[in-house]
């Protein structure tokens, strides 16, 4: 039987829901679905994974325990497992971690990789992704002994497929590959990752200052939303580049994108046009975004957003 491996990511001790979405890409295929785990509590993850169609969970460790974070070491361990279990297909997320590991795996195997797929067909090895910052969509076919795909988080919804999976351990040796991770400085800010958020509230020129972003953060906090920004807000030094959505920033695909005081340049749209619902709050009814959104709110964001925060507080 065909084998498909999924690279599972863990956040706050839990399997990321976006990974379960990626697993759903194989739901209609007659294949053994194998989860690869490099972190987290394997027994606990297995409980989740087997409810979504995973039949086999492989915990990858060394003789001395889990492999400390090092993208290159993790990638080499994944390559070793794929070889050992004879798995030709690897699917992961186009998340920060996924981009780092999947590309290394593909490079080591000399395997084709399609990153940031919005759809994949694992039966005929085709994948759909956007290019030119969302201005085009292309379908690709991968040719090779192995095939690697990175799914855009949230592109597919998880589909429950209850069953039972068994857990096994794969022990690997670490090699010195010339890269040493000295330490990881965790972002202590209580901010939600933009590329994986269900809801994003973004601010642009209309925010007027960096301090004013606080009202967006407060609103976002009520519903675990992420806060983004337009290039103008970043170029003005109000917020940092990691928050930028658009052509030279992040490409996001949340269920709801709330654009506050953003005019809606082509470059900004390039980064958020695949969002589910776009709500634009802008005092200027003639701003470009007002004709390219789902809900146009022609009002002062400094009135609307605090009111929204209050309402969300009331119901939470």
């Amino acid at each position, binding site marked *: 039987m065909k084998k498909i491996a999924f690279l599972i990511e863990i956040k706050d001790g839990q399997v990321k829901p976006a990974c379960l979405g990626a697993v759903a890409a194989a739901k209609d295929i007659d294949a053994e679905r194998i989860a690869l785990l490099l972190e987290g509590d394997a027994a606990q993850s297995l409980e989740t994974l087997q409810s979504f169609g995973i039949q086999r969970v492989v915990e990858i460790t060394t003789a001395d325990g889990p492999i400390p974070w090092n993208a290159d070491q993790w990638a080499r361990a994944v390559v070793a497992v794929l070889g050992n279990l004879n798995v030709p297909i690897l699917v992961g997320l186009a998340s920060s971690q996924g981009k780092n590991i999947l590309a290394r795996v593909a490079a080591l195997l000399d395997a084709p990789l399609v990153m940031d797929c919005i759809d994949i067909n694992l039966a005929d090895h085709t994948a759909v992704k956007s290019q030119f910052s969302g201005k085009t969509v292309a379908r690709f076919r991968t040719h090779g002994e192995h095939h690697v795909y990175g799914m855009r988080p949230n592109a597919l919804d998880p589909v429950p497929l209850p069953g039972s999976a068994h857990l096994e351990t794969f022990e690997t040796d670490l090699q010195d590959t010339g890269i040493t991770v000295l330490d990881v400085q965790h972002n202590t800010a209580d901010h939600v990752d933009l590329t994986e958020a269900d809801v994003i509230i973004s601010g642009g020129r209309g925010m007027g200052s960096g301090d004013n972003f606080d009202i967006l953060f407060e609103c976002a906090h009520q519903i675990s939303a992420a806060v983004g920004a337009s290039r103008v807000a970043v170029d003005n030094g109000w917020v940092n580049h990691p928050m930028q959505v658009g052509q030279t920033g992040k490409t996001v695909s949340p269920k709801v994108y709330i654009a506050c005081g953003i005019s809606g340049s*082509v470059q900004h749209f390039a980064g958020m046009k695949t969002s589910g619902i776009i709500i634009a709050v802008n005092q200027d009814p003639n701003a470009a975004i007002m004709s390219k959104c789902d809900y146009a709110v022609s009002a002062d964001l400094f009135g609307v957003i605090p009111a929204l925060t209050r309402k969300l507080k009331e119901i939470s």
Partner: protein
Amino acid sequence: MNIYVCVKHVPDTAATIRINADGSIDENITFIMNPYDENAVEAAVQLNKQTADAEVIAVTLGNQSAEATLRSALAMGADRGILITSAERLDSIATARALCAAIKADGIPDIVFMGKESIDSEGFQTMYRLGACLDCPVVSNALEFSMTERSVRVTCEMESGDLEHITMETPCVIGAGKDLNQPSYPKLPDILKARKKPLGTIALADLEMDMPVSRVEMISMKSLNEERQPTVIDGTADEIADAIVEILRDKAKVID
């Protein structure tokens, strides 16, 4: 020391992408250096200034028009350019092989810089493949960088905002992030000087490389022009907030 920097000639961020009947894009638009590659060139040039007996060599793969992007790199301070000409668009697997072959034919790299991603194909992989071809370590999205005798120290930013502090042996490949530096924009004398700097051209077919067995084939491409029909929401701030809560709850189902 040989400092290589790989750059890519890409459509301007503001360009409208039109697709030809054969699936290629209409190239009758403005092309620029891939924005992240500007940070890569800047990093290479800064390292060159700090290092005695060093040279920055910019390398690109493209059609003849990609020379413009190499000239931009030369105007920013690179010493020489190498243009690998190819009429067809290659996938990342073949591109990395070609860049590797061109670099190896030119000299022994001590360090290679490139942008953390290209804004046209958004493949997120060429630097890792180049690292595999050169058999050297790779990191991406570097925002701090320093070099000592045989190693480099880099800080890389993960998208979650976490920072990784890493040391790597040289030679190595570094993917430049936007916050690595502030690219200096060339002045007219730099641009004029760049016209006279050496620029070598080599055809892809003349490189010593085996074409890979695996590949990514583009089957089709279309423009994404998603039209949305806006519904206007008005009223007082409270009424608007109520309407947004309703959308979040009933339409998007992201709150209970």
